């Protein structure tokens, strides 16, 4: 092996090279071609610039870059319900995700504790979990809209329902898997139920619980885009759908990029929190 491939800088360097190559290929693929001659002027008018100049409707990376720069320069403007800054839209989405995810954690972690500690509770609730877990969160949307009668709250409910399962299942798994000898130590020390739950079971299961939280926040961020496309109004999902209605592909591509970056940031944040509670044997 060469010293380069072993170097810590090798992978980041290659990532940048790959990105550059992809951007160049993209730019070349959608660059202007020669005007299309001999077109019926009436038809050309109907078809717009794409047909008359031969220019692709797909924006170039430079177009997307310009949009991104503009968005970063003024992320929080508000020019009415259909024209808000992309920062505002992301903030709406994040608030919904964090609210739904937080509520889900409040429900799922204590429930998971109960299921993990009581085999009877686990066996009783297992069929419900198995049936409800694979239901697409968007399938709950009509029911949520009917019962809650508020589209913004319905979106939060959808985030709640999709976040709850991974956290519930992982907490139960982590709690049920606490090493028997650790529990035996607590028993020989006559540790009470509350102290055992907080000081033995919780730290022992914490890494597994955090894995569940990471899965949940990932799913929540996936689902919020779809949910906002349905309920509309605000949010990054609504932004993308709105730009589709505007036929602004450059804005859509920028939205996709921002969704990816925010999703990555959420995952890294939870990974960081998880590393704080992870123990090694």
């Amino acid at each position: 092996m060469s010293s380069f491939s072993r170097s810590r800088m090798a992978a980041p360097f290659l990532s940048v090279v790959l990105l550059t190559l992809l951007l160049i290929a993209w730019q070349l693929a959608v660059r202007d071609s020669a005007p299309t001659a001999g077109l019926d002027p009436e038809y050309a008018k109907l078809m717009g610039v794409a047909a008359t100049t031969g220019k692709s409707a797909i924006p170039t990376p430079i177009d997307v870059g310009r949009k991104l720069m503009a968005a970063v320069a003024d992320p929080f403007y508000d020019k009415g319900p259909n024209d808000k800054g992309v920062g505002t839209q992301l903030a709406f989405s994040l608030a919904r995700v964090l609210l739904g995810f937080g509520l889900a954690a409040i429900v799922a972690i204590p429930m998971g504790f109960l299921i993990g500690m009581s085999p009877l509770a686990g066996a009783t609730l297992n069929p419900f979990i198995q049936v409800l877990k694979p239901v697409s969160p968007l399938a709950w949307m009509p029911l949520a809209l009917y019962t809650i009668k508020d589209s913004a709250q319905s979106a939060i409910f959808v985030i709640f329902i999709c976040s709850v399962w991974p956290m519930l299942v992982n907490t139960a798994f982590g709690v049920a898997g606490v090493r028997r000898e650790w529990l035996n130590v607590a028993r020989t020390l006559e540790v009470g139920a509350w102290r055992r739950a907080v000081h033995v079971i919780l730290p022992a299961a914490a890494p597994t619980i955090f894995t569940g939280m990471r899965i949940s926040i990932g799913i929540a961020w996936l689902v919020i885009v779809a949910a906002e496309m349905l309920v509309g109004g605000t949010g990054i999902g609504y932004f993308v759908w709105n730009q589709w209605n505007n036929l602004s592909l450059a804005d859509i591509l920028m939205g996709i990029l921002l969704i990816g970056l925010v999703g990555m940031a959420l995952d890294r944040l939870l990974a960081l929190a998880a590393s704080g509670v992870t123990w090694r044997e």
Partner: protein
Amino acid sequence: MTRPYLSIEGISRLYGTRPVFRDLWFGVERGEFCCLIGHSGCGKTTILNILAGLEAPDGGALVMDGHEIAGPSLDRAVIFQSHALYPWLTALENVAFALRSRHPAWSRAQILARAHQALELVGLKDAAHQKPSELSGGMKQRVGIARALSLEPAMLLMDEPFSALDALTRGALQDEVVGLVGGGRQTAFMITHDVDEAILLADRILLMTNGPDARLAEIVVNTLPRPRDRASLHRQPGYYPLRNHIVDFLVTRSRVLAETRPADWTGRNVPEISPATPHADNKSLESLAP
């Protein structure tokens, strides 16, 4: 009838309908160090768990200091085979966790001071703030010993505490245990399969036949004088008769006796012999030979 300090009275453990062991009787006197030796499958660890109160016997009873053992207690501290430290706590915090159970009213400073003291006793003063993952196997077991001793238990229970360690570490730790709990200050019960360990530490050595349906075949009284240390123990007169007796038991008699349980056998009258003392006992030894 006067009961010993810890009295095991006819306990049994069933695996389905088959007994792992049954009708097991023995006692541990105050300040005595008792070792139980037997092959795998005779229920050694189960016996220790029952003494600790972690498991209930399928029959029989246990009485300690006039009270029936009905569950785990801070008075019976356990040193586990696999150290069983909490990996998310430092060595100091592991000891402090136990001390907090023992002394709920103590201040944090008192607990920490006492925990430091306990670690110093086992030579881990400098490793107090390390996590178990940063400690060697021997150091982890030392923390386990410090945790158990810091409770000042009426009885110390040890489940093959040194079996996972290499020979050199094991020897060093055995010497330390002799210094810490030997000499009649601490009542202790230890499971082992190491003959020399038993001879070094124990006042009496309980020999179990092979399972299933294991029984306590005999009790060997270790009359070698204290204080003992590993360096000179094997030069003591009586060491080899004692050692040979136990090794013979483990190699052949534990198996032969398991197959030939006398019809009139009862768990209450286990022969007690002293192979290290040259006197009339030797005759009874010959009669016991298969």
